[in-house]
């Protein structure tokens, strides 16, 4: 009895205190007065940070298309002008707290952020996760408002402050990655460690316990950030505000990154577990990284065709689904139009496959882009373009019954739909891709970077990641630690026969890139 009353009193007084503080700070959007005491860790009144926040928020509204840089470029001023005009506000050239508050207010009123409308690959966590995040933010000194498990403005501002304190991408959204980082910041070794290692990876591409265990074992704080696309990765490497130590580029982008001087050569001699790498995968990596000087394999996957057998059998009984023609041949694709036929919105992956379907088995620059353009030209109105963050759900829910896409996404759709989705590398051509590990040229913690890479070369560690993310790894000894369901899933580990149909994802020249962008813009209109 006594403890209960005491706890009740503590909670009441605690929330009373917190409410009190909230009133003192002013509800974020409610006041027009610029606040001297901004949320805990935001840099005190520096114009750059505010400008960058404004740029980020305006980009989210679609008014600003550059990469947020923190400088008041003409495009930024134009965006601010457009925003002010659109919302009937006095035009301004300065980025003040008042402006930021109005932008946030408009966004909250017009965009559905509280339900996780995030144009990327990660969504907001559920209510339980949100509540846990709010508690953790509070423990770190960032007031997230009431612990109510809903994503409100105060939670968003607190999350932004947390992300700023870690010098990672600031978006203010509580995704699975952010929640993972919050947990580690509170429970992990982090705060007491003297050394840090900063990682930059794709979303949903790590197992949280791997990072936690590394922190503990080496007494090195792990800061984990994500990038949304290969362009995003390059931009982050170039701006170099706070450099990263280990990055995970797709292999076909490694040559360009290396030639731009953005990657450093790996000190392979310092990697004790180097011999665990499967020499076959490592050899394939040299299709892109010629000498293997800059990268090592992390995960590998294929780009092929995923489908819902029940639905496709209804639309086209007896049809063999493991063929590119099911999507790229207009006559066949039309048969699947009723149940939904599509391609994932990734030009650099779909166009090489379209070129293969058009007869160009090997990537050949202009010839391939021409072939692809012809193929895609005949598919207008029949084949849909599915945003990357909707691919998994579209397949899992049956909205789409056949689509070209990544094997890893297909595996996740399989899991979500309890086995209703199949995936194969098409017999008439698929793509083989490797995601690599590399150390940026401007990395500040090269020793810790190599420690972490060496750690990922342990079979138990990489197997844990494979089991969690559903991708195949390149470790000779990881087999015994991988779960049977992942190992034996032909979508994760295709047979040698089906792999023989695939070709390495091509290196695209600048010209190729431009052609592809042009073709895709036309096709995905």
């Amino acid at each position, binding site marked *: 009895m006594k403890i209960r009353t005491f706890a009740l009193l503590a909670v009441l007084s605690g929330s009373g205190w917190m409410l009190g503080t909230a009133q003192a700070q002013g509800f974020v959007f409610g006041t027009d007065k610029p606040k001297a005491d901004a949320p805990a860790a935001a840099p005190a009144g520096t114009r750059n940070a505010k400008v960058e926040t404004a740029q980020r928020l305006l980009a989210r509204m679609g008014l600003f298309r550059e990469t947020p840089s923190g400088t008041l470029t003409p495009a930024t001023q134009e965006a601010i002008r457009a925003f002010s005009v659109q919302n009937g506000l006095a035009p301004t050239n300065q980025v003040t707290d008042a402006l930021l508050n109005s932008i946030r207010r408009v966004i909250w009123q017009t965009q559905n952020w509280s339900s996780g409308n995030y144009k990327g690959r990660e969504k907001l966590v559920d209510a339980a996760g949100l509540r846990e995040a709010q508690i953790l933010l509070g423990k770190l000194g960032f007031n997230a408002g009431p612990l109510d498990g809903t994503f409100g403005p105060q939670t968003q501002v607190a999350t932004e402050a947390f992300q700023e304190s870690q010098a990672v991408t600031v978006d203010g959204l509580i995704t699975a990655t952010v929640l993972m980082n919050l947990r580690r910041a509170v429970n992990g070794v982090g705060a007491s460690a003297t050394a840090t290692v900063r990682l930059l990876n794709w979303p949903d591409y790590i197992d949280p316990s791997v990072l936690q265990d590394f922190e503990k074992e080496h007494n090195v704080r792990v800061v984990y950030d994500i990038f949304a696309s290969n362009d995003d990765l390059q931009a982050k490497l170039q701006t170099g505000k706070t450099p990263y130590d280990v990055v995970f580029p797709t292999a076909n982008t490694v040559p360009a990154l290396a030639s731009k001087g953005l990657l450093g050569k790996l000190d392979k001699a310092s990697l004790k577990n180097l011999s665990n790498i499967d020499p*076959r995968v490592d*050899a*394939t990596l040299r*299709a892109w990284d010629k000498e293997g000087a800059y990268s090592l394999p992390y995960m590998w996957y294929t780009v092929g065709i995923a489908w819902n057998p029940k639905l496709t059998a209804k639309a086209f009984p007896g049809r063999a689904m493991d063929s590119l023609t099911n999507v790229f041949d207009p006559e066949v694709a039309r048969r699947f139009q009723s149940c939904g036929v599509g391609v994932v919105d990734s030009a650099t992956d779909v166009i090489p496959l379209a070129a293969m379907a058009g007869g160009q088995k090997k990537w050949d620059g202009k010839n391939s882009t021409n072939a692809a353009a012809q193929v895609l030209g005949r598919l207008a109105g029949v084949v849909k373009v599915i945003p990357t963050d909707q691919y998994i759900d579209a397949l899992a829910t049956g909205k789409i019954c056949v689509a070209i896409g990544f094997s890893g996404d297909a595996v996740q759709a399989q899991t979500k739909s309890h086995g209703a989705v199949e995936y194969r590398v098409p017999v008439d051509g698929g793509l*083989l891709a490797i995601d690599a590990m590399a150390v940026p040229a401007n990395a500040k913690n090269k020793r810790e970077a190599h420690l972490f890479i060496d750690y990922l070369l342990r079979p138990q560690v990489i197997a844990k990641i494979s089991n969690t993310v559903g991708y195949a790894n390149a470790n000779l000894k990881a087999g015994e630690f991988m779960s049977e369901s992942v*190992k034996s899933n032909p979508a994760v580990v295709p047979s040698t026969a089906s*792999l*023989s149909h695939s070709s390495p994802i091509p290196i695209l020249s600048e010209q190729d890139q431009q052609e592809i962008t042009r073709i895709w813009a036309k096709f995905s209109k």
Partner: protein
Amino acid sequence: MASLTPLSKGLIGLAVVGAMASAVWHLGLKERFAARTETPPAATSTPARTDEPAPLAPPAPATSPEPSTIPAPTPAPAPAPAPAATTAQAAKLSAADNAEIGRKLLDSGDFAQARVHLERAVKDGDGGAACHLGEMTLKGQGGIPANQDKAAALFQLAQSRNIICFASGK
């Protein structure tokens, strides 16, 4: 001292019998069986095999292809014809043919002959053969000492010839 129950007497008897059988095996019987198979047994004077036993293809300095029939339940295949003859045969075939024959021999378990054809195919520029030879080098088959670095070089050679040597079911 307590008297022994029948059960305990039986268990002790079993243990003694087991120990004797183990001693007999390690000291004598094992050699009798091993003599029928590939390598002359190393001096197994120690009954307990605490150190790592030699792999199937012992790190032999000589690269001469030994008739490598593996001690297995399957009936031992007929002793391979003299490799010298196979080398001559291989020299007359095209790279692609050698690669194909080598692959078939590999599938059927005739590693020594497979090796001859694959090595010739690799020399003559075949990519797929480099993959298969790399696999053999990785596993130490056909008299090739297991060597990951040499295997890696072969896989990279295949890649330079635009062949992907991927394994499945890792």
